[in-house]
């Protein structure tokens, strides 16, 4: 594991999370494209957990978000844990991308973006937490040829 970060579940802390992750990834020579993907995944998952994680009548302010990131060969894996209401992002509905712009609902895009960008995703509910593992393929001189 390269790093584990734990922050309070507040929108203002999401940027701290991403700033720290970006610094670590840069130090490990991860290219800007993958860093952008990581930033996107963390922002979408964190803001989702903060906005919707409360469920009915649960105080969202009590939440903690934890992200750890590891590299195994050319696979970078993010493990995202939140203490919110049970939610499997893999079960979320796919937005209708063919619909006319005027008919499209605003929203529902964040999880779809992650599903498209990720190499693989895995969801588990463990110890009253949502645990989502997201893997990304990191370009290396070998796999780019």
């Amino acid at each position: 594991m390269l790093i584990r970060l734990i922050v309070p579940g507040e929108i203002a802390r999401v940027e701290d999370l991403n700033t720290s992750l970006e610094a670590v990834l840069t130090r490990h020579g991860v290219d800007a494209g993958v860093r952008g993907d990581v930033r996107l995944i963390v922002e979408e998952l964190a803001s989702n957990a903060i906005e919707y994680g409360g469920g009915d009548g649960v105080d969202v302010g009590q939440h903690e978000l934890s992200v750890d990131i590891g590299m195994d060969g050319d696979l970078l894996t993010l493990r995202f844990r939140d203490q919110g209401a049970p939610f499997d992002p893999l079960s979320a509905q796919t937005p209708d991308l063919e619909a006319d712009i005027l008919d499209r609902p605003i929203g529902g895009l964040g999880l779809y973006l992650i599903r498209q960008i990720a190499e693989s995703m895995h969801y588990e509910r463990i110890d009253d937490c949502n645990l989502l593992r997201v893997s990304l393929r990191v370009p290396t001189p070998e796999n780019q040829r």
Partner: protein
Amino acid sequence: MSLQIDILPPANGSQRVALAGRLDTHTYEDLDVALAPLLHRQQQSLVLDLAGLEYISSAGIRSIFKARKALGGHGGKVLLVNPQAQIQKVLDVVKAVPMHEIFVSTAEADAYLDAMQRKVLRGDQDEDE
């Protein structure tokens, strides 16, 4: 890093706005507020110059959707110019904007707007005759 929003002087019935930095969950409301006065019925086109924009998330995409929806109601358009790699990737994935409304340069967008305007002018003349 935050979002810089430059509202440039309108030209040719078109409003240009240059964005730099990050358009995300922390900054999209600033853009919504800045664009709101521009999204009126007389506005035919809004050109968003994204050359300085480094990052966009779904929150930013929603802001562009909102602007498109507001202008689209009376046939107006939102054109995107100079998207960097991360932004182009996100636009592609969510099909936020038809490909023919994304331009690699302001010159290209201008040519498109000129052609649109000529079409409108020709239409007006036809009605006069």
